[in-house]
């Protein structure tokens, strides 16, 4: 009775499940030997990763000059990829923090995978600002550490320094959040483990979790606290990243709307990435009952909303360029749309503005292949958004004499591919050895939103309001004893 939730709401867990069944469904793939497909995928990811390492080695050995960047376009794929990866991470935090605070039950099905994705994406993102440095061996100069060089300190005015703080804070909090949520499930794994090493390993990882009431209470408090900490981070990290551009003087960068524009874009691309990952994961690990069409539709709605926000931002940019009457601003956008890189802008508009409109159709929102396709399209679009902002603003800025074109060279491509390798290697290892769905959180909503439980609630809805209230009060009184 206390688990009553309106039957109008779609169930979050399909099929007839009990707690044990939930555990079985989610945990048992971990205990099996990895399948052929997993090995192929891991091999492929490792190959990409190795190619990335080779590309970075090449770049560090010979210098940034092996990239296509030049005297006018000083940042290109490196920072595009950085912003893109950081943006992708945002969905995870949004799901785990903001949706938790908003009491969105459906987050339980997707939060674990999304949080893992956040961490791996931020790890990938972090590679770019580090390896794009001309003298990466002196990267530690960017940290404000006490040193013997007199009063030599970092420049706190530089948004690049803010990035260091923002991203490292973000990574730390995300890891804490993700790992603290993992502990009860890892304990489950430990308890079920039969092999010695697995027992030892999961035992170590579970920090001695016993599942006492006090532990649960602390865990939930911690979850709430971290959610409170992470919520501003969702907004701040990409705001700070956007300030790399917004605080500059370059037309096309120097825009006050950048912080919200970037945050919306980040969530937009982040959810698309969650879709990509989960659609594959649920299929492979047979978790369709836990990641339901309802989940997918909910996320598609968010994609639509944030897509609308970025579209609004694009229109605002153009309007302000016209309205401001600033020749450089107008020039930047003229060249952005009608210059030699016109096709990048077309891709951006097609992927980010035009195609998400198809989600107005419920049928398409609930269509899995279409959603999967769209999730890829949105991420291509969002990559191009960053590329357009970074490269297409720089390549035709103030000085027409310095205008150039930019084309990437193989080590840049390789570096990007390498981060995919890193991302998928991490994700595959995670999906194999840890539960991709938070078992304990699913259990917590099972009786409210499980399909089989919901069916039982149909009877309750036949009652009159008075009867219903009375019964609820009665139940509360019982539990109070």
């Amino acid at each position: 009775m206390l688990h009553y939730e309106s039957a109008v709401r779609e169930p979050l867990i399909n099929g007839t499940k009990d707690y044990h069944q939930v555990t079985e469904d989610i945990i048992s793939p971990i205990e099996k030997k990895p399948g052929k497909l997993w090995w192929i995928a891991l091999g492929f990811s490792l190959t990409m990763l190795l190619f990335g390492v080779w590309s970075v080695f090449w770049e560090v050995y010979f210098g940034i000059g092996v990239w296509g960047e030049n005297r006018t376009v000083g940042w290109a794929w490196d920072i595009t990829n950085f912003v893109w990866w950081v943006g992708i991470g945002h969905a995870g935090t949004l799901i785990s923090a903001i949706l938790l605070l908003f009491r969105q039950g459906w987050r339980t099905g997707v939060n674990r995978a999304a949080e893992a994705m956040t961490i791996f994406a931020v790890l990938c993102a972090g590679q770019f600002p580090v390896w794009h440095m001309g003298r990466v061996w002196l990267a530690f100069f960017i940290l404000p550490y006490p040193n013997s060089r007199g009063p030599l300190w970092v420049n706190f005015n530089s948004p690049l320094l803010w990035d260091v703080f923002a991203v490292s804070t973000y990574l730390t909090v995300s890891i804490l959040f993700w790992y603290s949520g993992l502990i009860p499930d890892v304990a489950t794994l430990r308890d079920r483990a039969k092999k010695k090493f697995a027992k030892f390993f999961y035992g170590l990882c579970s920090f001695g979790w016993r599942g006492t009431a006090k532990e649960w209470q602390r865990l939930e408090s911690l979850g709430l606290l971290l959610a409170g900490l992470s919520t501003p981070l969702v907004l701040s990290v990409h705001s700070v990243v956007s300030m790399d551009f917004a605080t500059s003087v370059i037309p096309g960068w120097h825009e006050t709307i950048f912080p919200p524009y970037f945050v919306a874009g980040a969530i937009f691309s982040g959810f698309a990435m969650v879709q990509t990952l989960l659609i594959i994961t649920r299929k492979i690990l047979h978790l369709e009952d836990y990641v339901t069409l309802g989940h997918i539709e909910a996320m598609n709605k968010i994609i639509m909303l944030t897509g609308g926000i970025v579209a609004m931002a694009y229109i605002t940019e153009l309007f302000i360029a016209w309205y401001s009457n600033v020749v450089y601003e107008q020039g930047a956008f003229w060249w952005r749309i009608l210059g030699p890189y016109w096709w990048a802008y077309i891709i951006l508009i097609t992927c980010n503005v035009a195609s998400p409109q198809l989600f107005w159709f419920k049928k398409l929102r609930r269509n899995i292949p279409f959603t999967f396709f769209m999730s890829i399209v949105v991420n291509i679009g969002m990559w191009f958004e960053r590329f357009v902002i970074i490269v297409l603003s720089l390549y035709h800025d103030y000085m027409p004499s310095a205008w150039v074109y930019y084309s990437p060279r193989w080590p840049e491509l390789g570096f990007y591919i390498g981060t995919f390798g890193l991302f998928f290697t991490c994700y595959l290892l995670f999906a194999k050895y840890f539960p991709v769905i938070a078992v304990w959180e699913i259990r917590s909503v099972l009786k409210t939103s499980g399909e089989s439980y919901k069916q039982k609630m149909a009877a309750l809805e036949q009652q009159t309001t008075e009867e219903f209230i009375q019964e609820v009060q009665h139940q509360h009184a019982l539990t109070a004893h």
Partner: protein
Amino acid sequence: MSEKKYWKGLEELYNTPSYQKTVRNEFPEKLPFGEEVDKLMQAKTPRRDFLKYLGFSITAATIAASCEIQVRKVIPYVNKPVDITPGVPNYYASTYVQDGDYCPVVVKTRDGRPIKIEGNTSSSITKGGTSAVVQASVLSLYDTARLRYPMIQGKEATWEELDKAVVEGLRNLGGLPIVLLTSTLMSPATEQLIQEFAAKYPNTKHVTYDAISYSGLLLANEACYGKRAIPSYHFENAQAIVGLGADFLGTWLSPVEFANQYAQTRKIKGKKANISRHIQFESYLSLTGANADYRYTHRPSQLPAIVLNLYNAVALALGKPALPNVPTLQDDQLQKGIQRAAKLLAAHPGQALVVCGSNDPRIQIVVNGLNEMLGAAGKTIDWNAPVNYRKGIDSDMQQLVADMEAGKIGALLIYGANPAYDYYDAARFAEALKKVKLTLSFNDHHDETTVLCQYVAPDNHYLESWGDAEPKAGYYSFIQPTIFPLFKTRAFQESLLSFMGETPDWHAYLMKYWEPKLGGLVSWEEALQNGVIEPKQVTLAGLPFKGDVQAAATQLAAEKPQSGELELVLYEKVAIRNGRPANNPWLQEMPDPISKCTWDNYICVSPALAWKLGISINRFNENDLNRPVAKLTAAGKEITLPVLVLPGMPQDVVAVAVGYGRSQDVGKAAGGVGKNVYPWAYFNNTTQTFHYYQPAVTLTLTGETYPLAITQTHNSFEGRPIILETTQQQYNQDPGEATREQREERERYGGDQYATEGTLYPNLYDFPGLKWGMSIDLNSCIGCGACTIACQAENNVAVVGKDQVLAHHEMHWIRIDRYFSGDPENPQVVFQPMLCQQCDNAPCENVCPVAATTHSDEGLNQMIYNRCIGTRYCMNNCPYKVRRFNWRDWQGATSFGQIKDTGDMNSDLTRMVLNPDVTVRTRGVMEKCSFCVQRLQDAKLAAKKAGRPLMDGEAVTACQQACPTQAIVFGNVHDSGAAISQVRAENKETRLYYVLDDLHTLPNVNYLVKVVNKDPNDFYVEPVQHVLGK
């Protein structure tokens, strides 16, 4: 004394048993040696042995390690050489002389090695100006491809062996003549020596051959004035200047001198401008044409008709007799141009000058007649001081080659000339050379001619040489060595002396020659110190004119010029000139002032012709440096070269630069770059001179592409307030018009308080002492690029090579932006030197995460290389795009050892050119113009040591020093008497502006508006869109 008891504590006072025990025990706690102590004592290896082993192993390791270390000896001077203090530069006056090009210089040496060339301000000819070629000449001293020893039949020999063999050879020529083949020489002492040589070997002839010949002018002057010479030109006295295919600011005769004179007529003082008007007729877009007020293009074959028509139009205007039978010009534009030029010239008698680059003596006779008619003699043309810049007579060369072929030449001694490369029929010359009994080259490179010679007696570099020069009658200039010869080379003159059997002491010879003339050793030393001797009184004069203009005109008119659909012009580039300095990486990488292309030659075609060929350069592909390749066929020869679409080219003419396509033996930088087009020059039997054009060529695209390393691909400044220009008429009506918008904008935000009032963040820096500022006059800048190379030499700016220029990784700290406006077929051109603007509110400074770029209290935007980690954020945020990143290890400054070497720039030899005052940047760090901070520090130190404040003009930047037109003024803006302060005060309400001022970057570099002497109607021309917008 009382027995007073002092106690430390109660324990002592009462003297408890436990206290007694404690006192007795010296170490109250148990010592931390446990059983180990006992174990140690019983160890098998006792302490002594341990120490032995320790001692042995340390000694052994020390010895072993020290064997590996290379011993580098730092040897102090036992006797300090006179005048050399480590770390303190010495300056020596000298003279750059090459193929008749002349520039008096001051050579900066550090620790005994020359590292920088500066102009000699004592010279009234160049007034301290230099050119890019002169600036770069210091690098050729350290050219790894220089010949290092004498050779016989391609094998190393000693000088004794060579002398013996050559003398024997010269004595056994069987009566056949010896010919000394040189490029133009202007050394009086050398000429005397050659005469003495001729006396010793009576059958000796001296033939002068110039790769780019001025025979036509010499012969015409002989016919007109009885002197086979070229007069001094005085552009500074001209108000009306007409150039007929003469690139006098870039390559013609004496560009440094002319640029300076020309700029004097273009300077604006005060609110009334009265600058010269310059009209240029030409067949390709030259540097001079780019600076002209009016420019008309024509086919090379139309030049005679233009000259004749111009003559007649001027004659008509002045009421003088006209020439009969002058062919009419079909071209409306040219007609208009001739009318305009004639009107201009006729309105300025005695203040007019016409110069013509043609090598046809008949055309030059008509031009001489024209100048006479305009009263140029004694005003803008001076026959009192004829110049020795070019002396070659082409028919002499023709005769020589014919004689060689006929086996009539016994010995050919070649000095400075390289006919196997730059003679139009080089194959014929090479063949003929085989028939000469004795061939010898004095050239300092393994050039195309030298490799064919039996004997090679390499000359010194001019920085290793003694010498003299007489650029003009009565003007003398001296060359003194600034370093001991690096290799086993010997001055050309010493070789001659040796062959004559005399003591090979050229220095003594030179002193013997000059001392009596100058009146003693003191005067000689004084002359060396000053570098130049000039007449005290200068009077300009003409000569009686006895040229037969009529006859020349009749001949020209009677000739029906041959002309195909397309004509070809060969031209010299400002950097590579006739090809002599081709192995200089600095010059190869210097963007051509007009095309902005480096490391290549190419076919220049007009946009209209490109359109016809199916090439369209538009906004979508202008950045694509892979340019179409075309086959150029003329006179039975063909060549494939990339096509560069260049606004300002005539529709029916294509132009290709000479000086490229050098052989691999010349050096790494020159070898295989571009193609040689000298074979398309030809000898005209009627005029007896070389001509540098082809009247009928065909051009077909091959369908291939070829990458051209162009540094600037967008040609318009898009009407942005980067360039401000106006016309003289408008300037005189309203001098402040061009800068009004900017001044009003400043007025709105505090006027003089703009720096603090125009921003939300007014906490700017304090500049308590000096504050540096620079002013660049766009009206004086001709875009020659001397500053770019001077900066490169001064600041150790790296050469990156063609592939890296293609990637837009070039490193120049000061670049010349070249913008076109108006009609693409004949655009107006503006040049703008662009360097770090040293902003007081610099966008680059606040974005650096590690504070590697900061502001000094003298207003300098500083780069701290050691701190830079290379995020490139500053480069992105620089609105002027002047920051340069070390994309690769250009100069071997990183431990990784992955050097991106170009043209041997990093050999031990070439690195001797590096300026020790400037850090060689490692890869991965940002760099940019520093306002030559090392020079500023130097000047400040000198003032400090002298105990006085810094005076204006003591701190000079390299670009400012090199500029032939004094377009750059630099100094302390806090000194109200300084030139920079005066320029700014004078132009405050008129021409002074800052680039992108509305960004509130507060630059310390200002520009002065360009004022063009054009009618406003002709100045504002709408671009013709059909040509560019395919």
